[in-house]
């Protein structure tokens, strides 16, 4: 079994759906960080069978909305003094600004590009969002 040192101060992203770890690593821009950061893939998991994990050493301001959108099952563990001091499960965000593009070519946001697209969660089960402007539904 592969071993990665316990971190003293930082964040552990746990329960990432196997195969999504690299995407999340990229989306969070972690390759630009100077601090030690580990991406673990296909780690055995009692709950999921297999999972990915990301261990980030040091302080980082995470965009939980983005994280919840990328993988609603994720658990964010905040570590201080080698201990988990807080666990957060972001889940699917209710409102997403600027992260989803509307695919409707007739939507006003397709031409007025200064306006960040705004989406609202309408069906948690189907992971379906609705465009605030044109009403188009998208699945994430």
């Amino acid at each position, binding site marked *: 079994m592969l071993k990665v040192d316990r971190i003293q101060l930082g964040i552990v992203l746990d329960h990432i759906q196997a195969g999504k770890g690299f995407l999340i690593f990229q989306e969070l821009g972690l390759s630009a960080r100077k601090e030690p950061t580990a991406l673990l893939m296909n780690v055995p998991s009692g709950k999921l069978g297999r999972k990915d994990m990301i261990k980030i050493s040091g302080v980082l301001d995470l965009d939980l909305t983005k994280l919840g959108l990328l993988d609603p099952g994720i658990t964010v563990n905040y570590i201080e003094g080698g201990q988990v001091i807080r666990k957060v499960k972001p889940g699917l965000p209710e409102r997403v600004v600027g992260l989803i593009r509307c695919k*409707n070519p*007739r*939507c*006003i*946001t*397709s*031409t*007025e590009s*200064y*306006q960040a697209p705004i989406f609202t969660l309408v069906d948690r089960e189907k992971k379906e969002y609705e*465009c*605030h*402007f*044109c*009403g*188009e*539904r998208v699945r994430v």
Partner: protein
Amino acid sequence: MGEGKVGLASLKGRHFVDALDFSPAEYDLLFSLAERIVESPEEFAACCSGKLIATLFYEPSTRTRLSFEAAMLRLGGKVITVADASTSSVAKGESLADTIRTVAGYADLIVLRHPKEGAARLAALYSPVPLINGGDGAREHPTQTLTDLFTIKRSKGRLDDLTVAFCGDLRYGRTVHSLIRALALREAIRFILISPVELRLPEVIKEEIRSANPKIELLETEDLEVGLAEADVLYMTRIQKERFFNEEDYIRLRDSYVLTRGKLEGAKGDLLVMHPLPRVTEISPEVDEDPRAVYFQQARYGMFVRMALIATLLGVV
């Protein structure tokens, strides 16, 4: 009266972008005011004196623009208009947000029509003055809904306990979608949806109205005459040629939903035949003489209810 004034005051300064931006109670307040305007227009002939509205049309629409402008002029207010905004500021590359902020500096209220869906919702984000959606692409046309509901209220005296039949293009017709969503919030409403299979009401709208009102009754049929016998209101729409892949299908379906005097024989004596206009072939001209045909009256009521809306949003009543 006192209560009514408090209610109307709550609408002052608001935008009207989506038919569901106002609650049924707020609609009723507007309809009470519109009734007063129909009965005594002279009382309101100067209520918007000193006020100015801008009608900003990015696509042509003679009917809607004239209705708004007539409404404001009959309230004693003034109108500035851009009948084809797409050839002026847009050609210079100005954003809709900048146009709205500029025009809001000149006018007390803006009416916007735009071909893109959600344009009015975006414009409202940037408008410091009330903004009325005069139609945004295939998305919304809420003052048509206001017109339709007021016509029913004025003619039937109620907006509950009604069987409302919709006929024609129920899939793409935005006036149908808005009216159905607004009526679904009322008590004891039954819908009869008459259309070819290809142009049925979208599932997402059926789900929405069922979740808004689980008691709603929906009957779908392809047969105009079946739907007609029970209806209190028949809302006709145009079947548009561009929705079809081949001309044969279009002609077959278009002709099967033509309302004639003969088809009206089995209908109720106090039926209302409505249409958002323009009418093409779906209502035979012979029906115009039938007292149940109210579509031209409907267009006139549209002006009165827009008067009520403008006066209310400007806070002058």
